[in-house]
């Protein structure tokens, strides 16, 4: 990996050097480095591009980094990654994709991730998407994430699209078993002519299942965002969907949260709000010595923190 590619890697995975623990680096559609540990194995698929990540039952305090970097214009990279997390294992998984597009052709990465969490397993999944480069080619990221949680398993997904992604369609589906928990924190920033669409479906299908979605977004310039989070309750469960957006300039935001109760014991709530930055917030920060632009930046930074 060269300097530019490491810079992109830093943006998406906060890595400045090869990480501790298991990792798999994918660069321009090819394997660029891999490390496994005693408890975590990574195996290349033979029938299609992608990897299987196998975490042994009872694994504790380990992490897996699986970043993807694209620096070749015109490349359409599709990858299938399957995660098998053993019973009672607790791991951090850091994924994410960064594109450095220097050409005039579209660079696209579609990451198709499927998670299988066995009984009592616990995963913190961090995914950051980022695009840059002087080229005129579009940076496109269309991730598909599917999660299956067995009894008592839980996943926290932090999905962030920082900047520079021209077009994204994110599809996330999560099936939550009895006593399981799915927490999704989504953060999205679009600017210019960018577009982003996020579809989520959380199905609470076991007694005591919990689902929480907190989606925060900022749309600037002429960008367009559409959110469709849906929480379905099929048993005694609790689900909460919260979508909060700041709209600026000539942007457009559509927020369509849905709750779908299929059991009398399902308790589901949704909230959605779209609004501009409040004037009193900017004035307050100006009284602290910030300029209007600095104030706006701080407010957005805090909002997407």
């Amino acid at each position, binding site marked *: 990996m060269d300097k530019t590619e490491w810079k992109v890697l830093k943006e998406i995975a906060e890595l400045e050097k090869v990480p501790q623990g298991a990792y798999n680096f994918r660069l321009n559609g090819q394997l660029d480095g891999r490390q496994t540990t005693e408890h975590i194995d990574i195996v290349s698929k033979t029938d299609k591009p992608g990897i299987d990540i196998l975490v042994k039952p009872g694994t504790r305090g380990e992490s897996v980094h699986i970043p993807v970097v694209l620096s070749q214009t015109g490349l359409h990279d599709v990858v299938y990654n399957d995660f098998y997390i053993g019973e009672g294992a607790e791991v951090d998984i850091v994924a994410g994709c960064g594109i450095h597009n220097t050409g005039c052709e579209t660079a696209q990465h579609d990451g198709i991730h499927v998670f299988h969490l066995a009984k009592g397993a616990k995963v913190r999944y961090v995914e950051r998407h980022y695009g840059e480069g002087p080229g005129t080619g579009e940076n496109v990221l269309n991730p598909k994430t599917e999660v299956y949680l067995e009894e008592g398993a839980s996943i926290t997904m932090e999905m962030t699209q920082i900047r520079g992604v021209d077009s994204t369609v994110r599809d996330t589906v999560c099936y939550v078993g009895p006593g399981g928990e799915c927490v999704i924190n989504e953060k999205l920033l679009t600017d210019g002519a960018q577009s982003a669409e996020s579809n989520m479906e959380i199905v609470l299908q076991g007694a005591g299942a919990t689902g929480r979605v907190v989606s925060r977004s900022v749309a600037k310039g002429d960008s367009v965002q559409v959110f469709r989070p849906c929480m379905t309750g099929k048993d005694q469960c609790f689900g909460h969907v919260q979508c909060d957006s700041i709209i600026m300039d000539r942007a457009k935001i559509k927020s369509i949260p849905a709750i779908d109760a299929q059991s009398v014991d399902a308790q589901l709530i949704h909230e959605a709000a779209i609004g501009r930055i409040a004037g009193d917030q900017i004035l307050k920060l100006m009284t*602290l010595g910030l300029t209007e632009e600095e104030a706006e930046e*701080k407010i957005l930074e*805090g909002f997407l923190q």
Partner: protein
Amino acid sequence: MLEIQNLCYEVEGEEGRLGILRDVSLTIPDGKLVVITGPNGGGKTTLARAIMGLVTPTAGKIIWNGQDVTALDVTGRAKAGISYAFQQPARFKGLKIGDLLELAAGTVLRHDEQCQYLTRVGLCANDYIGREMDASLSGGEIKRVEIATVLARRAPLMIFDEPEAGIDLWSFSQLTKTFQAIHDQGEATLIVISHQERIIDLADEIVLVSKGQVSAHGPKADILPGLLSDGAMAPTCYGKKEAETRG
């Protein structure tokens, strides 16, 4: 020293132009604690906001330490050393109380420094530093954080707009101690808009603002007895009612 010269602020009302501030002139020497009081709607908040630059006066000048700040925007006045605690503070989604204190101080604060500012407004620091400045805070809590941000600025001119509103009794007594302590150190000039006798009692000088004008200004000893006895704090419709009764 703060000098306000012939300040006017007019707005377009249904019945023509309405004078919110009508030729207000006022001099506040350095290091004084001045309480501005008077009936609701009399122009106190507008006057304070005009000093901070949140309201643009239609005429008159504001001179701070010899510099004419009338044309400066809010940021410029903040940098010149003027600070202001809002009567109704803004809430922020995502910004934490600790972040806001650091923005106010203009520097990274140690944990104990953050604690100190929050303790001075009666908040237990460990419970609050990491909390968001959002709707989960009560009105009284948000108000106290607002005051803490002004303390953290350590500006030579501090304006507090009805700091006591919404604050419980225990915190109120902490607040009066804090104002007293800042005043005793003599490093800042304090302007406090208040109706509270205990805050008025801290004042070196009292300014009575009503119907957009300074109707009295002087040392506490001269003004306070009149305030308490002759109904100067009565609502603005007092005169009208009186006229009706007489009529």
